[in-house]
């Protein structure tokens, strides 16, 4: 029976040799017999075996794990090419050839957008057989130049994203091993593309000239054979080529250090957007003139013509995606891809038009504002690379200077060695990390912010200790001491402000990510209220110290601005925080009163107590003592007596509205701030009305249906009251 094993159904592959002194012995019969001798659940294994580790084994032939499963398609790229899956030229009919090339370009765009949205490169852009064997396409100048710039673009985008390392959760993005991402001559991709563009624009000119009977300019061979369609096809190709060209320029300009290429990048972004519009407008022409039947609905189609493109096969290199599971992915439609690129270009434009504010406060505000539009990975990576290069802000300002500026330290003692001190170095590192974290996606960002809070509070304690120590060991030269003491005081205040800023961002991101249930809003707003008060205090302190300096400097110069007196009272920034404090407190009390008197929004869940939820939500803050001495008990105490009768008398929402109105003049030149103020006013007004309605209806009216919506602000809810 031994022969059966030797000559089994599948011959052993010749390329897998056994060692010289050994042979391949068939053990199937032995295994079969031995298995029969095994008891149920018994395993044969060695001493290094762990059941836990064995659970992580990749299961062969499992469609969700085994990316190498034989699909009915081709075994290799070469086999596919031999079978004519990616012909060159695409057709001997030159009109069809042009049509097919346009389809490929459109599908590329859809693939690229899908890739940017988080799928693997191998399953999207590199599902193109032409791209996988680029040299084959060289006889077809149009296709060749397009493929080459595609490849160069992908490489450029990957390099930005992997430099910035904003892609932790989107790690599929940069995985490109096994793919021919870089090739010789890719740096010439622009000149190749330009040459092709030049030819086609001449063909377009010639065609226009002949149609207007102005005489033939030159003896130019037309793009394709159907002269009625010549102009349409030339235009369709030109906008696609030009989009590629400008997009590549955008990437190259934005790559320049310290934002030096931003001005030029913005011009290319504008060109990109106008070419995208042309591409979109070619839909009608291409759809109408599509050869063959196109059953695809244009909404789902990845091409403007609605046809399937030639030369793409995602299963061909799906095994390159290992060890990731072979997910079946859906390529975005062509229309959605265009929408994606429009958004990406607008986001990049926002980055390029950033004034590169030297003040950290302004940067944080810009990043938060930027994140509001939910930019995708590529745009966020670009922002991060702008902010942090070589460990410096904009690759230009040392972190220590940035912190000093932010902390309003006027004169740093030279040679004091403070820049080199351990704590200050760590503080710089934390500031850099904070900037990087703020560029990641919302979910990742929140998790990271929660974690770094602890580091910040540790450094705060260290700074506090160090400043006390310095004070105790006062050396004799008084002025120096004064300066360094002032420095550490400023740093301390600034650090505290950052801690509460991070905490407030952490809490607010929870709303954007939909992490809180309505029954928990009360505790969340309460915590926000507590954190915001601390933040306002720290901000006031910092601004107070900085305006002292400003005042002193101003007096010397004798040109005091007239509203200095007003400024020195409460800075607008603090008043703005005051608005949010009022809103938070108002919402906390309203929710608490609803609980106490209407018995709604009461029980969090059948599975855990409210206290457990409190701990789950705020554990990271509590562990970092942000703020100290805050507990569930305190929350209970401060909310258990809330009643509508007292709420109406002392109205937080009215306060918020009043302050917001007053603030308008302070922020009159800042449109973003004005929008923010308008939002605050609306939230306050709606809630004030709701409060009155509930009060008038009386506490026991069962027909009132109260719900909370985020229609005017992402974090501050509006109570809506309906009668059922």
């Amino acid at each position, binding site marked *: 029976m*031994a022969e059966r094993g030797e000559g089994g159904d599948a011959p052993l592959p010749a390329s897998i040799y056994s060692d010289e002194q*050994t042979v391949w012995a068939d053990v199937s019969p032995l295994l079969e017999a031995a*298995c029969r001798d095994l008891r149920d659940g018994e395993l044969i294994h060695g001493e290094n075996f762990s059941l836990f580790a064995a659970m992580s084994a990749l299961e062969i032939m499992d469609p969700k794990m085994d990316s190498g499963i034989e699909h009915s398609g081709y075994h290799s790229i070469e086999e596919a090419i031999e079978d004519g899956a990616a012909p060159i030229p695409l057709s001997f009919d030159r009109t069809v050839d042009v049509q097919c090339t346009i389809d490929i370009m459109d599908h590329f765009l859809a693939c690229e957008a899908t890739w940017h949205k988080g799928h693997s490169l191998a399953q999207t852009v590199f599902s193109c057989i032409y791209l996988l064997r680029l040299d084959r396409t060289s006889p077809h100048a149009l296709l060749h130049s397009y493929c080459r710039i595609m490849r160069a673009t992908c490489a450029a985008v990957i390099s930005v994203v992997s430099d910035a390392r904003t892609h932790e959760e989107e790690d599929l993005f940069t995985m490109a091993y096994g793919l021919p991402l870089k090739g010789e001559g890719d740096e010439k991709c622009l000149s190749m593309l330009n040459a092709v563009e030049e030819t086609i624009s001449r063909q377009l000119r010639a065609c226009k000239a002949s149609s207007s009977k102005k005489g033939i300019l030159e003896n130019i061979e037309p793009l394709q054979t159907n002269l009625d369609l010549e102009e349409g096809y030339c235009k369709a190709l030109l906008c696609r080529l030009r989009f590629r060209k400008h997009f590549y320029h955008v990437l190259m300009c934005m790559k320049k250090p310290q934002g030096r290429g931003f001005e030029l990048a913005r011009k290319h972004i504008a060109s990109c957007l106008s070419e995208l519009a042309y591409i979109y407008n070619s839909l009608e022409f291409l759809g109408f003139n599509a050869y063959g039947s196109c059953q695809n609905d244009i909404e789902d189609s990845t091409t403007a013509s609605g046809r399937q493109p030639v030369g793409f096969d995602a299963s061909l290199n799906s095994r390159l995606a290992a060890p990731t599971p072979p997910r079946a992915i859906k390529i975005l439609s062509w229309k959605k891809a265009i929408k994606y690129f429009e958004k990406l270009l607008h986001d990049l434009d926002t980055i390029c038009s950033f004034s590169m504010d030297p003040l950290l406060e302004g940067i944080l505000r810009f990043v938060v504002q930027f994140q509001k539009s939910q930019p995708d990975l590529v745009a966020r990576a670009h922002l991060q690379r702008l902010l942090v290069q070589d460990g410096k802000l904009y690759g230009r300002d040392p972190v220590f200077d940035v912190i000093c500026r932010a902390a309003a330290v006027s004169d740093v003692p030279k040679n004091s060695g403070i820049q080199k001190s351990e704590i200050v170095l760590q503080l710089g590192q934390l500031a850099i990390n904070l900037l990087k974290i703020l560029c990641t996606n919302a979910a990742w960002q929140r998790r990271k912010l929660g974690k770094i809070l602890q580091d910040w509070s540790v450094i705060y304690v260290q700074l506090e200790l160090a400043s006390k120590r310095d004070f105790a060991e006062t050396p004799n030269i008084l002025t120096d001491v004064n300066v360094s003491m002032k420095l550490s005081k400023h740093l301390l205040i600034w650090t505290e402000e950052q801690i509460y800023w991070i905490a407030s961002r952490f809490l607010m991101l929870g709303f954007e990510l939909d992490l809180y249930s309505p029954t928990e809003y009360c505790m969340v707003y309460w915590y926000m209220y507590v954190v915001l008060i601390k933040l306002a205090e720290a901000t006031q302190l910092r601004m107070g110290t900085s305006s002292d300096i400003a005042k002193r400097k101003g007096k010397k110069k004798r040109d005091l601005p007239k509203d200095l007196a007003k400024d020195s009272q409460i800075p607008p920034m603090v008043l703005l925080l005051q608005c949010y404090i009022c809103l938070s407190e108002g919402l906390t009390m309203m929710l608490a009163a609803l609980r106490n008197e209407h018995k709604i929004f009461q029980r969090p869940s059948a599975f855990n107590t409210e206290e457990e939820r409190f701990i789950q939500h705020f554990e990271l803050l509590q562990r970092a003592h942000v703020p100290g001495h805050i507990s569930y008990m305190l929350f209970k105490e401060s909310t258990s007596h809330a009643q509508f009768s007292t709420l109406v008398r002392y109205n937080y929402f009215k306060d918020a509205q009043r302050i917001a109105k007053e603030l308008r003049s302070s922020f009159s030149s800042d449109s973003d701030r004005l929008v923010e103020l308008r939002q605050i006013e609306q939230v306050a007004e709606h809630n004030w009305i709701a409060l009155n309605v509930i009060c008038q209806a009386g506490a026991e009216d069962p027909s009132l249906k109260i719900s909370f919506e985020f229609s005017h602000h992402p974090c501050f809810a509006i109570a809506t009251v309906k009668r059922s």
Partner: protein
Amino acid sequence: MEQHVDPSSVHFGNDTNNSPLVGRVKKLLNHRMLVGINDGRFFLGAFHCIDKQGNIILQDAVEYRSTRRTSPSPMEQRCLGLILIPSSCRSSCHVDCSIEEQISLLSLQK
């Protein structure tokens, strides 16, 4: 091929299995094992574990697949690490061993 198992060698509840066959398979642990599966692929790795149903776990496994439908054709390979090959898709199974070991394996099958 029916293997005659001495009933005294199977003791349920006893920790060690005294079957001589199981003992032989134990000796093969950590040997290089080449497993062929129904769709034509081969997996080469260190024999790590087998259960009663005949599912095999290989360590540091490499997948071999032919690049063309028509054989013989060049093989393409990639590393997979720890893999589990269900017995249902296994079509062949070989172990790398010395000639003497092979003879003793063959004698067993007689």
